[in-house]
């Protein structure tokens, strides 16, 4: 398959996901509603940057999308349950944009390569759904003592620190 057609298809899907993600929180009235609308419109508009500029500036629409969702969520415009769908959409959009950026303009793309990418997308989407669900469930957990909270917090911090640590160790070996 020609990479030109594949890039077009990826761009179309990314645009669809981005539209859904930016339009979903646009429900409110008043100043906050206006801010959310502006952020959503800006994120939709800035999606053109990575699509037209070889994948550069992927962070821009994602940052605006995140800001839009956080504003909507913090102001109570959207329910807490929407975080599951939103996290799936956000990571799938990221993967699509990076796939788009990596694909050469004129290349022959193997079906196995497309299959591998789609499998990766589905796996990440499924993992995102389950992890968001777990995170959402964890918010309802009420810890009995401060010690348990401390232990859980320390564990979470250690898990988070493990990522850059692992990265540094890998680079040290390489």
């Amino acid at each position: 398959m020609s990479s030109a057609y594949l890039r077009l298809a990826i761009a179309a899907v990314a645009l669809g996901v981005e539209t859904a993600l930016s339009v979903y929180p646009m429900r409110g009235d008043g100043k906050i509603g206006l801010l959310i609308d502006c952020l959503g419109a800006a994120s939709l508009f800035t999606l053109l940057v990575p699509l037209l500029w070889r994948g550069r500036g992927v962070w821009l629409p994602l940052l605006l999308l995140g800001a839009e969702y956080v504003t909507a969520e913090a102001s109570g415009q959207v329910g807490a349950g929407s975080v599951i769908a939103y996290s799936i959409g956000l990571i799938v959009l990221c993967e699509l944009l990076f796939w788009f950026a990596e694909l050469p303009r004129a290349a022959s793309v193997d079906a196995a390569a497309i299959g591998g990418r789609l499998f990766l997308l589905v796996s990440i989407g499924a993992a995102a759904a389950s992890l968001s669900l777990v995170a959402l469930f964890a918010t309802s957990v009420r810890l009995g003592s401060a010690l348990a909270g401390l232990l859980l917090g320390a564990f979470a911090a250690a898990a988070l620190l493990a990522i850059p640590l692992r990265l540094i160790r890998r680079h040290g070996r390489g």
Partner: protein
Amino acid sequence: MSRSPKLALYATLAAASFIAALALGRPELAGLGAPFALVLAVGLSLPPPPRVETTVRLSRERVLEGEEIVAELSFSAPETCELQLALALPRGIGSVDEPESFVLGLRRDRPRSIPVSLGCERWGAYQLGELVLRTGDRARLRLADRRIKASAVLRVYPSRERLLALVKPLETQPFAGNRVSRTKAEGIEFADIRPYVRGDRVRRINWRASSRDRVLYVNQQHPERNADVILFLDNFAEARQESEGTLDQAIRAAATLADHYLAVQDRVGVVGFGGIVKWLTPASGTLQAYRIAEALLETEVNFSYVWKRIDVLPPRSLTPQALVIALSPLLDERGMYALVDLRRRGFDLAVVDVSPIPFANASAGGAPDPQALRLWRLWRETLHLRYRELGVAVTEWTGGESLAKVVEEVGAFRRFVH
């Protein structure tokens, strides 16, 4: 190995969502960044980008200009991965109907090969198989770029034209060949009769002439000899437009002439007279055909300010009584004077002027000034006249014309002069 921009972005998004969850006191926001953190954690635990082994095999290693070959690129990887590859093709070799980049899905220990059709657009010796590879880990967080050097050698020989006639050398050499010599000796072609002298063979007596004059006469014949032909390539300068130039045309003409002269048992030599002087002493046979083909592949324009004369050539490269066919764009004074020098030294010279004018007309900077072009044409015509005054056959050849026509023109001039 390099980090993908994805890695930094995912880490930033995950951190931002966790900070937002803490700052706003809304833990569900952590769920937004958790998948990004998970991809990072899992992706970095997976094996690094695998090292892909590649081989390049060509269907043929020797081809003629304009022909196509198939290059088979084979890949194998110790881990399942996505491979992006770009085939870096040298100028003169092009991909036929296919892009030069591929994205392949490789599976662990399952070699894959892809055939790529390549068109050989220009003569030359090429090193093929230079590849730029990019692999990544399964999550595409770490990328590894590699450049693989060319390993296969492809020789593209200049295309040949069919000639019906050749420029006949004025003198022949003492070796047996297919040309009727102007001298009289043992041979097949009848030349003349002369009075019988003691020692002449009886079978050579011309009985009809002898009976008429009542004196014995014997027949004389022209012997069959070969000739030496030197192809003199003036490569001091060339006129070029993208993939085509006067040197390309001269090389094709030289290859055609060499093949045809060798086919009639003549000895053919090549002299490349330019920034670097190269020569191939005259010889005949199939081996010489291969030597000439190889020598022509190495011909190129080497820029130089050094004034060179014919003296720099060894005497063996310009054998006495050889026919010298010069293929020159007549752009550099050193080449022009070398031709005059050759003629003054008594060489039988014919000049094929590989015209640079079509390349000036098609110049990228727009059409040339008509006055300047006219003056240039006049100057070149004057130059042709001066060569003709020296008894040198000169014919202008534009690449679009048939070489056979040019050879015929040179032959006609030589028949008129000699």
